[in-house]
């Protein structure tokens, strides 16, 4: 039996959906000029930029969404299954700051930091996908979105959770992926990436978000709606009310997306949070935020759609008991909820900061969650009587063949980061931060980059240099020195 965590029963989900369908009709959903014709063509009435989406149109759109799809790794192997109760984790995304590995103080992230994070994430089996985790402050802001993806594609073979920062830059990101995959058709057939697209709460599909939805649908590259109601501020204060708003934002987004291209893959996802009434902050580690994520995903699962949530992030500003308590709890609950992609590992300080050390600690929490999902299995014909028949009351279970053959299935062995007493516990035994730093170094030294086929590699570099130069970028930080054009040199 697979263990589960559930917050809503079927009747409650139906009630949530009924109100969500009401909301998208009245008051309706603010949409951008880019999609007005498309929506009107489907019989949706639009007045003053507000679309009033009839139940039937929305339900038809929901009906054409694929219930599952895969993201592929560089070799073309299906590596992430969006659908059913599959559970995967990836690091949090688009962070501006990083906890400096030496000082553990937050500072602006650089290309070199993202490269390190990608290399570490590549080595962690707990993470099924990469994310375009940080914005590199050493490249011009206008190319910040695609530059992250370039570095991820260069250093990783795993699928990628990414996203564009504008309507036009989406095409640069898609072009990078197409080069890496061997063409737009290859990308469509075996997508390597999913793109986050965010509505603005409440119920507003901005020009940029609307355009991303339509363009992704037409490119056949999966989109992931990241709806983020903030309960009490940009959404109703009750958890249930915010779940309704989340559903309405997702359904309206899916309607736009499916009208552009029926059958295109899209994910019911989000990063909802409560709004802390003392500080106005949006704590990702609050249990109510986790409850929102789980409840929102349950509604998506009820509709048979692939799901996503934002968990495994803590709110403290340094690596401490608070952030890891928050991250561990949400990793476990997200996994038990059967959410297909859980983003957020490595992040702290209300998603304002990434930490590679936290990422390796979170990976252990994720491993525990993954072990938990395997549940308690009847692995032997008799559960206990047969082994007792062998040992009687001596209790020599350690000597038994069954013990030796089954212990690896039953027990997960964490890395040395988790103190199970392997190391001496004398004076000066390393604390969790030091153990995490050691783990990061271990993973980095074990990492080896695998090159792309040389023609694709050259095309990728040439394309990135051309696009970078338009923004005044010299060289390709994190990949090539500025004088690459004359004398190619990897760093």
């Amino acid at each position: 039996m697979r263990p589960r965590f559930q917050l809503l029963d079927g009747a409650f989900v139906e009630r949530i959906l009924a109100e969500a369908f009401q909301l998208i009709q009245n008051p309706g959903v603010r949409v951008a000029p880019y999609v007005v014709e498309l929506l009107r063509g489907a019989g949706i009435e639009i007045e003053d930029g507000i679309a009033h989406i009839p139940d039937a149109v929305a339900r038809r759109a929901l009906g054409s969404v694929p219930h599952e799809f895969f993201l592929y790794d560089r070799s073309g192997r299906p590596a992430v299954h969006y659908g059913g109760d599959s559970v995967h984790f990836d690091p949090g995304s688009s962070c501006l700051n990083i906890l400096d590995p030496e000082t553990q103080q937050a500072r602006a992230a650089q290309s070199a930091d993202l490269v390190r994070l990608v290399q570490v994430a590549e080595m962690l089996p707990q993470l099924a996908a990469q994310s375009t985790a940080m914005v590199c402050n050493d490249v011009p802001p206008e190319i910040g979105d695609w530059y992250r993806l370039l570095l991820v594609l260069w250093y990783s073979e795993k699928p990628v959770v990414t996203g564009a920062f504008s309507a036009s830059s989406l095409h640069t990101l898609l072009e990078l992926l197409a080069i890496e995959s061997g063409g737009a058709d290859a990308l469509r057939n075996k997508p390597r990436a999913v793109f986050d697209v965010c509505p603005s709460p409440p119920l507003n599909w901005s020009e940029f978000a609307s355009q991303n939805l339509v363009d992704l649908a037409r490119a056949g590259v999966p989109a992931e709606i990241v709806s983020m109601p903030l309960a009490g501020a940009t959404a109703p204060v009750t958890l249930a009310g915010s779940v309704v708003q989340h559903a309405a934002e997702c359904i309206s987004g899916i309607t736009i997306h499916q009208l552009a291209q029926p059958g295109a893959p899209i994910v019911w996802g989000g990063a909802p949070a409560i709004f802390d009434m003392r500080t106005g902050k949006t704590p990702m580690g609050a249990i109510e935020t986790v409850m929102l994520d789980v409840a929102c995903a349950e509604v998506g699962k009820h509709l048979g759609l692939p799901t996503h949530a934002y968990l495994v992030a803590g709110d403290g500003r340094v690596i401490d008991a608070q952030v890891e308590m928050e991250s561990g709890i949400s990793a476990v609950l997200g996994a038990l909820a059967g959410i297909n992609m859980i983003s957020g590992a490595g992040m702290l300080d209300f998603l304002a900061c990434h930490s590679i050390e936290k990422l390796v600690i979170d990976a252990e929490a994720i491993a525990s969650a993954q072990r938990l999902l395997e549940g308690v299995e009847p692995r032997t014909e008799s559960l206990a009587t047969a082994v007792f028949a062998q040992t009687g009351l001596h209790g020599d279970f350690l000597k038994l063949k069954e013990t030796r053959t089954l212990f690896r299935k039953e027990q997960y062995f964490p890395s040395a980061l988790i103190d199970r007493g392997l190391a001496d516990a004398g004076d000066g035994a390393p604390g969790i931060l030091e153990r995490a730093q050691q783990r990061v170094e271990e993973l980095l030294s074990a990492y080896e980059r695998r090159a792309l086929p040389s023609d694709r590699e050259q095309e990728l570099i040439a394309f990135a240099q051309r696009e970078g130069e338009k923004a005044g970028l010299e060289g390709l930080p994190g990949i090539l020195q500025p004088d690459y054009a004359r004398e190619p040199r990897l760093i």
Partner: protein
Amino acid sequence: MPDDTFSAMRQSIINGAPETASELAQQAVATGMAPLDAINNGYVPGMQDVGDQFAHGQMFLPDMMASAEAMRAALAVLEPELKKQGTQRTMAGVVVLGTTKGDIHEIGKTLVGTLLTAHGFSVHDLGVDVPGEKFVTKARELNADIVGVSALLTTTMKNQKGVIEALEKAGLRSQVKVMVGGAPVSRRWADEIGADGYAKDAMSAVALARQLMEQKTQSAVKEPS
């Protein structure tokens, strides 16, 4: 008894009761109480009390919004009376506020505006997605003391720097204090872009605005123009 009246006014703010606050203001006008007395001895202490309780975690943002609403209701009655009498409230300062270009998030910014207004600042809210030039034009038009720039996104906080640059370009930078805020913003970021101050939440934004006004007054004393 004026003391009882002041106390009731103060309480109407603490309770976040706009109707009571408005009724008490109307009664004050009817009985000939000086509007400035009502404001300074009745309502303003109520708002200060709310600020203190909020700072100690005893009141919450929805309470504070209700108190600000009550303050607005009282002022809506009393300010026209002040005008009639040809007197003016001494404002704590003139603030031009907005969310930076490319960013449409307004909760934080609106909250700051509400609290600044409730604490005696004259606030002009430019809304969301505001380009640097618009901040400049408004600041010049109103002879603003402070420009407040909000950003919620990691991708738009860079535009806070753009507002400062626009003020510099327009030759206004030395006359206005710039305060920045928003979820991804930090004190370090504020220092980096050359802002005069950073506030982590709406209540600290009020304290910061007061502090910036003090700095302005002090420098004006030192360098009379």
